[in-house]
């Protein structure tokens, strides 16, 4: 599968305040993301993960290095519209990204800007709303919706542009568990059914555990990059940089430290239960 997002030796510093030296936020990040991949980006507050995400659709431009999406260089101003149509971004606060007072108008907003003909726009808006499970709410006011529903509207607005990838910057941080589940399930479906590449920035390890690949950013560099199993099995390293691992992984790790033989790459509650059950049935039959 070809790479859709290519990040090459990316350096970035925010403009320095007067009399201060510019602090480098990203220190030479190289990362390739394949078409159709579902990638989680983890890192504590201030690690540079959001700054990294903002480079993918040219909200920020590299101080040094290069970012391309589907072959388009993000620094190419002439192709900015093309780029943003291919890579859409969803932010943390649902209230900051909704502009219209009717749900379907909000979803149509970007299409109007792109000059999509009416018939086509109608079809795309309806399809997008159906895809996020919000079609029945198309004539509602966004103000009456829950946080999770608002995020799904924001996602619909992106999907209507028929992008190749979606970047979500902590889309569930302000939501309750129900809202989190809705949003995650919606994004997973987009990925599975439409093959849209997903970059999910999150603080929730259980969300990251469900992705194809986990990239851990620390102090502006890539610290780890692998499958959730590969990354989370390094419990001590993850904890050392202020992140967590799923509790099932941690429990297995703690028991292993106490001398109990358990596999290292446990991620889900189910797997953990299997391993513990095996521990007792195996030895019990001796």
């Amino acid at each position: 599968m070809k790479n859709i997002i290519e990040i090459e030796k990316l350096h970035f510093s925010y403009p320095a305040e007067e009399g201060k030296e510019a602090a480098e936020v990203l220190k030479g990040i190289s990362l390739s993301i394949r078409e159709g991949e579902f990638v989680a980006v983890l890192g504590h507050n201030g690690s540079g993960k959001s700054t990294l995400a903002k480079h993918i659709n040219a909200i920020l431009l590299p101080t040094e290095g290069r970012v391309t999406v589907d072959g388009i260089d993000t620094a190419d101003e002439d192709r900015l519209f093309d780029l943003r149509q291919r890579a859409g971004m969803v932010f943390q606060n649902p209230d900051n990204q909704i502009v219209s007072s009717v749900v379907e108008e909000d979803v149509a907003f970007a299409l109007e800007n792109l000059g999509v003909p009416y018939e086509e726009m109608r079809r795309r808006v309806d399809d997008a709303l159906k895809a996020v499970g919000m079609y029945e709410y198309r004539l509602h006011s966004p103000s009456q919706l829950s946080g999770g529903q608002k995020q799904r509207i924001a996602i619909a607005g992106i999907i209507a542009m028929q992008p190749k990838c979606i970047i979500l910057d902590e889309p569930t941080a302000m939501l309750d568990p129900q809202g989190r589940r809705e949003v995650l399930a919606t994004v997973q479906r987009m990925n599975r059914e439409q093959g849209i590449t997903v970059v999910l920035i999150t603080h929730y390890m259980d969300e990251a555990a469900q992705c194809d690949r986990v990239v851990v950013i620390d102090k502006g560099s890539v610290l780890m990059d692998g499958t959730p199993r590969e990354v989370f099995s390094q419990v001590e390293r993850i904890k050392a940089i202020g992140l967590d691992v799923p509790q099932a992984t941690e429990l297995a790790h703690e028991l292993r430290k106490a001398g109990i033989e358990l596999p290292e790459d446990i991620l889900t509650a189910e797997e953990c239960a299997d391993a513990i059950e095996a521990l007792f049935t195996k030895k019990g039959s001796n």
Partner: protein
Amino acid sequence: MAILETQELTYTYSRGTPFEKTAVDHVSLSINEGEIIGVMGHTGSGKSTLIQHFNGLLQPTSGKVLLDGRDIWENKRKIRDVRFQVGLVFQYPEYQIFEETVFRDIAFGPKNMGLDEAEIKRRVLETANDIGLPEELMEHSPFELSGGQKRRVAIAGVMAMEPKVLILDEPTAGLDPAGRDLILEHIRAYHRRTKNTILIVSHSMEDIAAFADRILVMNRGSVFCFDRTDKVFSRAEEIAGIGLDVPQVTKVFMELKRRGMDFGGEAYTVDCAKELILRRIRERNGSAPC
């Protein structure tokens, strides 16, 4: 001794309109002095409406709220005093910071209480210490601080009033795991020093499990259960059934129970799960014939 009580508390929004909705329905409960209470419930369960009654932001449609045994609405003009005694920290409280220095922001509440300079200073510095804000930050602008520090300034502003009851609505929302642990640790430091009652609203059962003496679970405007943490977790299956998230280790033990393995206890933190399993292994090894 009960510090806060509700008797048949009921609150109906938009009464007499087509939008009428009873958000809290005949809730009677009692919270003891010095307790740490976790409050859970999904969106729309009535938990926010309930806590807004505790310091008189909402007035009951019917029923009573008692603070120290007295009806807080007994004398409407005294409701301001109730707000000094029951401090409420909203979600994302850092958006409410407005003063020029950290010190002045924390001092705002105590100042409004009419305390003298020396007392204000003592309270600001003591709470700043509890919440982990070093003294040299006191003269900085709160807007220069990191998100986590700003949140702690905002929480300290309410703590500095030394309310008998401190209510925090989702104090860890949006923080990374290290920031979340830090805030909880500092809230615990405040509790150790003041022994004041704390209510903490959270969606994260994992946070609450390691923190609270008792847990109040709200569902559809009523009390679903209000009991010791271990007792509440013994009903994990039902709690998951009303749309709340149970910790992953609890799910592991629920699954094991389903398969007929009972570890004789409730696992709601990684530590207690580990202990339960190790205990079972020791028992088995001890009783096994050599």
